[in-house]
């Protein structure tokens, strides 16, 4: 069953949900299905229990951080310049990213198929970072969602025990975000270069140099 069929099947069975297929450019061909957070729980339950899918095994759950960035694409447009139609390069600037994503890789043990990739996106990266937890559907998401909460800062509503998994209680940052800044501890770097050298130099200048 390909992703198109799965999509139409879900749409027929979970009313009101909006789905979108995110194409994947790599030769792996693992396209994914973007689910809106409001219906994600129902969709997940359907995928697990539907007789012809039985995606009972949620293998991998992970987060991805997509900070907001401006993507400029060159588009050739036809324009009338000085009365003559000409092809002109126009730079289109589009905003992309600016959200956190949770990705679920689903397999079926019973029917030996997969992976079906589910994605959910938060509204932004600051405070509207809530997504529904799918742990009640697949228990295997338990620790992995906690890890995403810890490292990316997505808050999973409905998770039975949402605490930090890897970092200590009281740690404030979400280190897997791409704009995370390491604590400054570069006293001794005999072979520093690139990024490390830059940070080491910053450390030194903060200390007043040597």
């Amino acid at each position, binding site marked *: 069953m390909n992703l198109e069929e799965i999509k139409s099947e879900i749409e027929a069975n979970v009313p009101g949900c909006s789905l979108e297929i995110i194409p994947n450019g790599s030769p792996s061909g693992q396209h994914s299905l973007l689910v809106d957070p409001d219906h994600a729980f129902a969709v997940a339950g359907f995928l697990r229990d539907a007789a012809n899918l039985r995606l009972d095994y949620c293998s991998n759950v992970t987060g991805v951080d997509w900070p907001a960035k401006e993507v400029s694409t060159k588009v050739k447009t036809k324009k009338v310049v000085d009365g003559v139609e000409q092809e002109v390069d126009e730079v289109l600037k589009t905003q992309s990213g600016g959200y956190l994503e949770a990705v679920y890789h689903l397999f079926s043990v019973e029917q030996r198929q997969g992976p079906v990739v589910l994605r959910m996106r938060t509204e932004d990266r600051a405070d509207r970072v809530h997504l529904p937890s799918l742990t009640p559907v697949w228990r295997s998401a338990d620790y992995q969602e906690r890890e995403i909460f810890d490292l990316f800062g997505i808050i999973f509503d409905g998770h039975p025990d949402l605490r930090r998994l*890897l*970092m*200590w*209680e*009281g*740690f*404030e*940052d979400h*280190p897997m975000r791409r704009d*995370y800044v*390491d*604590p400054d*501890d*570069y*006293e*001794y*770097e*005999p*072979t*520093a*270069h690139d990024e*490390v*050298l830059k940070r*080491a*130099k910053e450390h*030194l200048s903060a200390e007043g*140099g*040597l």
Partner: protein
Amino acid sequence: MDEQLKSELGRQGVVATSLQELYNWGRKCSVWPLNFGLACCAIEMIAATMARYDLARFGAEVFRPSPRQADLMIVAGTVTKKMAPQVVRLYNQMAEPKYVISMGACAISGGPFKQGYNVLKGIDRYIPVDVYIPGCPPRPEALIDAFLLLQKMIDEQRLTGPNRPRHLNADLPSEFIVPEFGAHDLVPPQNPEVWKVPLVNISIAGKNESGRD
């Protein structure tokens, strides 16, 4: 007593020794390590105690699970920031005389993981280390080699004078600050009593921009 006389006496069946030699011999031949592994290097540490390498031949027969009964802490593996307070606390709980072998790149400097946000850049930021073994992971033979070096160091220590062992010098500390979890990092990030940054430094060793192409 000079060596010649001593070996002469030895041939006659008389053992002559000084208190210092006897004391150091006793110390160096009964170094019991703490049964304490952190990461990859711990597997090589276990391999070193197994039949093929047999660390027990040097008096390190018993790995003690309790720090109170151990003399040697082999920091075998990456010390993360989450683990560092526990490591320091274990060290503090050990009874003097106590030694630390820092086994593997991670325990020395953070090694390949030193750029990680949760990795301590070397356990010597918090506790004094006696022997460093480079390697990722060091071979079991390298651990034995380091152990022999430690024994040699113990053997050469004088029991009096300014360089006497720490446990015979009441002024020197035996316990060190246990760091606490802060909001972004450990507090304090290093113990300045132990961690003395040398003059080898980035401003000297780092790239001078002109030499780069």
